[in-house]
């Protein structure tokens, strides 16, 4: 596998490959999110208890699940970077951190605007909300550690170690609603058994979860490409690109 994978660790190849993948990710993300959101807002039936306020679910749940998925992807990339010293993996991790932070912010914010009409409060210090807030701080920590070192190899190592230590928070977020009593309801999407949600409501939600994942992928590719360029400023192929850009 490493023989096959190794060429893609070459920055120029990684740059070109991510450029080829980008339009596919971007287009499908747009299609999925447009479908899921308009289906969820216009056609999904109203919740019999929550009325139309439940439509916040179509951004809250995708954002919350992606906040954890992006973290796992970032930590995996950091692990590869730390263990095998593949710089592209470090750059991928650094590209994902700001996306994760924004998505986590969205999960927290939409949770608050959903909590206010349903629970009567914007915020409570319960296990699910607090651990998700810690996730936001972990992302901010990774971003600022990576930004605080001029030497980016050192920066990636420091940020990577924080990212790996922070993985402990992910199962805490996931199982917080089962381990502790919480205002937050447990998951209604089940993988192994039938979901406790009508399919008219469920399908647009699944489409939006996929759409958010594809969008996170597309933005990662965009940032990853810029990161490759900025870390390889001395290479002739990047110099040539910069010259062409400067001539514009």
């Amino acid at each position, binding site marked *: 596998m490493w023989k096959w994978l190794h060429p893609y660790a070459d920055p120029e190849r990684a740059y070109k490959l991510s450029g080829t993948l980008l339009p596919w990710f971007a287009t499908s993300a747009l299609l999925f999110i447009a479908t899921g959101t308009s289906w969820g*807002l*216009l*056609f*999904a*039936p*109203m919740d019999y208890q929550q*009325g*139309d*306020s439940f*439509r*916040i679910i179509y*951004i*809250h749940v995708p*954002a919350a699940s992606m906040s954890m998925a992006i973290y796992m992807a970032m930590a995996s990339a950091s692990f590869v970077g730390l263990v095998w010293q593949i710089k592209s993996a470090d750059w991928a991790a650094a590209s994902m951190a*700001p*996306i994760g932070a*924004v998505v986590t*912010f*969205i999960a927290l*914010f*939409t949770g608050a*605007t*959903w909590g*206010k*009409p349903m629970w009567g409060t914007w915020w409570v210090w319960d296990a699910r909300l607090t651990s998700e807030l810690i996730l936001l701080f972990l992302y901010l920590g990774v971003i600022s550690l990576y930004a605080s070192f001029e030497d980016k190899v050192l920066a990636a190592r420091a940020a990577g170690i924080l990212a790996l230590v922070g993985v402990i928070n992910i199962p805490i977020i996931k199982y917080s609603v089962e381990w502790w009593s919480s205002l937050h309801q447990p998951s209604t999407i089940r993988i192994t058994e039938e979901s406790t949600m009508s399919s008219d409501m469920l399908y647009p939600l699944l489409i939006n979860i996929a759409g958010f994942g594809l*969008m996170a992928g597309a*933005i990662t590719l*965009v*940032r990853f*490409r*810029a990161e490759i*360029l*900025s870390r390889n*400023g001395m290479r002739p192929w*990047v*110099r040539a*690109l*910069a*010259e062409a*850009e*400067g001539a514009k």
Partner: protein
Amino acid sequence: MQFDSISAFFNMGGYAFYVWLSYGVTALSLGGLIISSLGRKRKVLTEIAKQAGREQRLKQIRTSEIKGG
């Protein structure tokens, strides 16, 4: 279609403020992230072009000093 009219849609069964606030903030923050991410490539490349220009000028000064000296 779950709503009888456009105004019913915007009213969101009385939850308009909460629903549109969450959708609005989501759209704004994702839009900001996407725009800033797209802008990075150009920023990085102009930075590198500047750096290359500086190195070029330094080289020229050095060679002319050697010739002059």
